[in-house]
């Protein structure tokens, strides 16, 4: 399966507990000739900045103590945590302006606790993380782990099309020329495959029925056993105690879950091949 990958291709790694904002953008080193229509690489000041070795070392030590369990010793991903070397947020960060808030606030929804670190400590962490990302982009030395789009090209697009229109049931909700048009230009590689399997960003709709019988509908904003909330058509957040109302959540994305036990790995790769034709 020969898939044209632009030189300045966008490698997305969707991160396990990583946030929606942490989309990776890595410019691979020159391996293939650049197609004429390739986009100019997005460079930010931080990507070319180098840091004093002692600062990077300090950051490495601190990273090792606090971050490495989840993010890996080399920041390339560890137990449960995202690969920071392919992170778009890291790439866009300038001297910690984006990394700092993530470290100090944590990512509560994703399981990352906050870390109360001094400015000096933060500067060292930022230096280390940027250095790791730069090293990853500039030097694909052996032993580095991660998933590139080229790893995911073992499927057959025609078989994927059969699955999409047949056993998978995808075409009951999706269309390559409709809602999924251009999806392969928007998302690449692992991120595309993860979204294909379970589009975690898809929003659910909810209709809440009050004791009066009035129905309120909107986008689901929060739900636990005790509280249900939505944002209504005016973007207003509204919540109720679950004990006071009836509610019905509409999550079309649930159809994806039903496929998990049914997929073979070949189905997954074939579907991926087919989806990658939706430019």
């Amino acid at each position, binding site marked *: 399966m020969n898939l044209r990958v632009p030189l300045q291709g966008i490698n997305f790694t969707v991160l396990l507990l990583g946030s929606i904002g942490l989309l990776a953008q890595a410019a691979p080193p020159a391996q293939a000739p650049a197609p004429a229509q390739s986009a100019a690489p997005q460079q930010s000041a931080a990507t070319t900045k180098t840091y004093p070795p002692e600062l990077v070392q300090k950051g490495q030590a601190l990273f090792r103590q606090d971050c490495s369990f989840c993010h890996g010793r080399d920041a390339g991903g560890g137990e449960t945590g995202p690969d920071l070397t392919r992170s778009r947020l890291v790439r866009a960060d300038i001297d910690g302006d984006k990394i700092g808030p993530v470290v100090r606030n944590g990512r509560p929804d994703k399981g990352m606790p906050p870390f109360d670190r001094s400015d000096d400590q933060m500067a060292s962490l930022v230096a280390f993380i940027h250095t790791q990302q730069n090293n990853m982009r500039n030097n694909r030395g052996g032993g580095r782990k991660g998933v590139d789009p080229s790893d995911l090209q073992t499927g057959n697009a025609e078989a994927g099309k059969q699955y999409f229109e047949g056993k998978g049931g995808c075409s009951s909700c999706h269309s390559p020329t409709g809602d999924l048009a251009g999806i392969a230009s928007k998302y690449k590689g692992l991120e595309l495959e*993860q979204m294909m399997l379970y589009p975690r960003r898809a929003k659910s709709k909810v209709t809440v029925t009050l004791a009066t019988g009035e129905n309120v509908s909107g986008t689901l904003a929060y739900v636990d056993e005790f509280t249900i909330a939505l944002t209504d058509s005016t973007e207003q957040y509204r919540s109720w105690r679950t004990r006071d109302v009836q509610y019905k959540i509409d999550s079309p994305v649930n159809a994806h879950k039903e496929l998990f036990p049914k997929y073979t790995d070949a189905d997954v790769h074939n579907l991926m091949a087919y989806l990658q034709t939706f430019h």
Partner: protein
Amino acid sequence: MNVLKNALLTVIAGLTVPVFAGPLWAQGADSQLLLHPPKNSWPSYHGDYSGRRHSALTQITPQNVKNLSLAWAFQTNQTIPLKSSPLLVDGILYFTAPDNVWALDARSGHQIWHFNYPRGQGEHIGQRGVAMYKDSLFFLTPDAHLISINSKDGMTRWKVQIADVSKGYWTSMAPLVVGNHVLVGVSGDFDNLSGFLRAVDPETGDTQWQWDSSPPAGTPNQTTGGMTWMTGTYDPELNLVYWGTGNPTPVLNGSTRPGDNLYTCSIVALNADTGKLVWSFQPSPHDTHDWDAVETPVLVDGDFHGKPYKMLMQTSRNGYFFVLDRTNGKSLLTVPFGPVNWSLGIDKKGQPIPNPAKEPAPDGRLIAPDEGGMTNYRAPSFDTKTGLFVVSAHPSWSLYFAKPADGTYGWAGADYDVWGTGVIEAIDYQTGKIRWAHDLGDESGAGVLTTDSGLVFTGDAKGNFLALDSTNGKTLWHAGSGSHITSSPTTYELDGRQYVLTSSGGVMFAWALPED
């Protein structure tokens, strides 16, 4: 139904933790206290040696738990979420975070002393608590040292090195005191390291014995790993300690370690005085998914299909619920407790057979459960009243990758979650059937405590502490804690009042019924 009733009666008769008033002022935690914890104590990580985390206290009931309210809270003012189970001995609570031990007056919630270890090397990912023997507390540090701390004033008595942090080891578990042995385990699977369990002398820290879970690093075609991440359990009649071991290394690539990879992902029975292996059972032979088998090896005496057994039960990370005869390690039951898709079935020993087609691959494999596992560090509970094994489960799906470029050291691959949820499952131990399930909406970090009055204490993914009816899982009480729950509840009686302790974020909460 009859079988279950008989099982219940046998189980109740066979309780190894009788409730009695106990001495009012013990001299710390001596052997008798550890063997027969009185109701005004929680002297070790699990509460007692069985690991059931089931309390005989009945002051808080399904009828009155709706009135449960805050007795006090202690704020550590640290951002690191608490993962330890606090000890309660002589009216004083001891709990931890990496590099930190606090002693609180359990009546007021106020600090008596605070021990702080200078921040050093090693992963600061978590700390599960101290062990106590007489008036010494035993505390493991991120840089893999064991410290003996005077429980009266928080001063260091001695410090010994357990492992070399520069090689990639660290320590985080709550040690277990058995007789005159302090049992300590090690963490670390980002490097190819040999795992072990070590017994040290409580007076000096000198090594008494060490049991190695894997061959020395570098042995050709052999595995490393088998780290002893969590606290085991102990049967005083058999004089056996039961311990779970972690995954092999390299983690996601098994090519350099053919075979079952003993004793990684294993449950082992060791002689408590010598550390000699008596039997072993392997929940995950030749694991390639990071599925440690370190979840609590819960000890239960009761009937199994009409015959009395001394059992060991584990809801393992790989998605299987195991019931063993703990005298010899023979399998009684092996059943999944959530979706699993990585095995070819169960072999004659009751061990899952890994499917080679579901090992991590260059183009990825869809695997159930995810790398975090069907359950993890959060404690389960065996409820002797209902005969139900209650666990916080995480049905989940993920993608696992490994390719030659990832090498054969440490993680050696990459895995990514696709989807998962959280649910409290109450499992009938004789069949593996789930009697009731309580949806948590998402994966929770909260462990489970059950009580004789018919309550299950746990928490959901949104920081709500929960009390459930143990017969049907219905919510009877809740309180929003405002942060992540990453610990397991404990309970004790003090001054005639039953307290339940939970933590969320950096705060320890004590709950009790309002006083008259």
